[in-house]
């Protein structure tokens, strides 16, 4: 296995936040470091005024079943999974400085789950020996 897991979190829909939570927590459980780079449409969900992620229209017909199933298995929210993972292992959440500028959010507007606002060079350097996935 690579030295760590780098996750570029770009999508801002509920379906994509599920694997973010599960993979981050699993890596933390296994002692694998995780670095998350939040950019694109995912950014608003990492601010203090975060909205609830919505499922994309194309999966509309599956959503009630997914909701019902997640309730039945008592699946935690993506946010709690990432927060828990930060307690369990070496997990850092970085927000892309370019996207933060584009949508006009400052460091002080970020949710406490965010460790820092950084550029892409910092993230690439941090994760040079890591497996990187793009969500």
């Amino acid at each position, binding site marked *: *296995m690579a030295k760590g897991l780098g996750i570029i979190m770009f999508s801002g829909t509920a379906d994509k936040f599920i694997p973010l939570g*599960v993979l981050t*927590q*699993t890596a*933390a*459980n*296994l*002692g*694998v470091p995780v670095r998350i780079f939040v950019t694109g449409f995912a950014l608003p969900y990492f601010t203090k005024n975060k909205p609830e992620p919505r499922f994309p229209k194309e999966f509309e017909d599956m959503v009630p079943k997914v909701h019902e199933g997640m309730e039945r*298995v*008592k*699946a*935690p929210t993506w946010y709690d999974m990432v927060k*828990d993972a930060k307690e*369990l*292992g070496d997990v850092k959440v970085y927000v892309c400085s370019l996207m933060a500028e584009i949508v006009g959010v400052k460091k002080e507007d970020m949710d406490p789950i965010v460790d820092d606002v950084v550029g892409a060079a910092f993230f690439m350097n941090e994760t040079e020996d890591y497996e990187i996935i793009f969500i």
Partner: protein
Amino acid sequence: MPELIKVDARGMACPGPISALTRAYRKAKNGDTIEVLATDPGFKPDVQAWVKRTNNELIELTEEGGVIKAVIKVTGKRG
């Protein structure tokens, strides 16, 4: 004194049982035993991967009536 730590992760879905095990493991020391009960069907292969990755020892892995029981000897703690 080595301790026996019991973790009841029955009813939890993936990755809940492994997270519960990791949480218990953080407080454990080498020589302790952790016993985990889980009903998640993924727990059997997951716990085997976890012990391998964290250098601990799986001394029992059984399933009875849909409940998986894993007994782990803590050997992977550093320092």
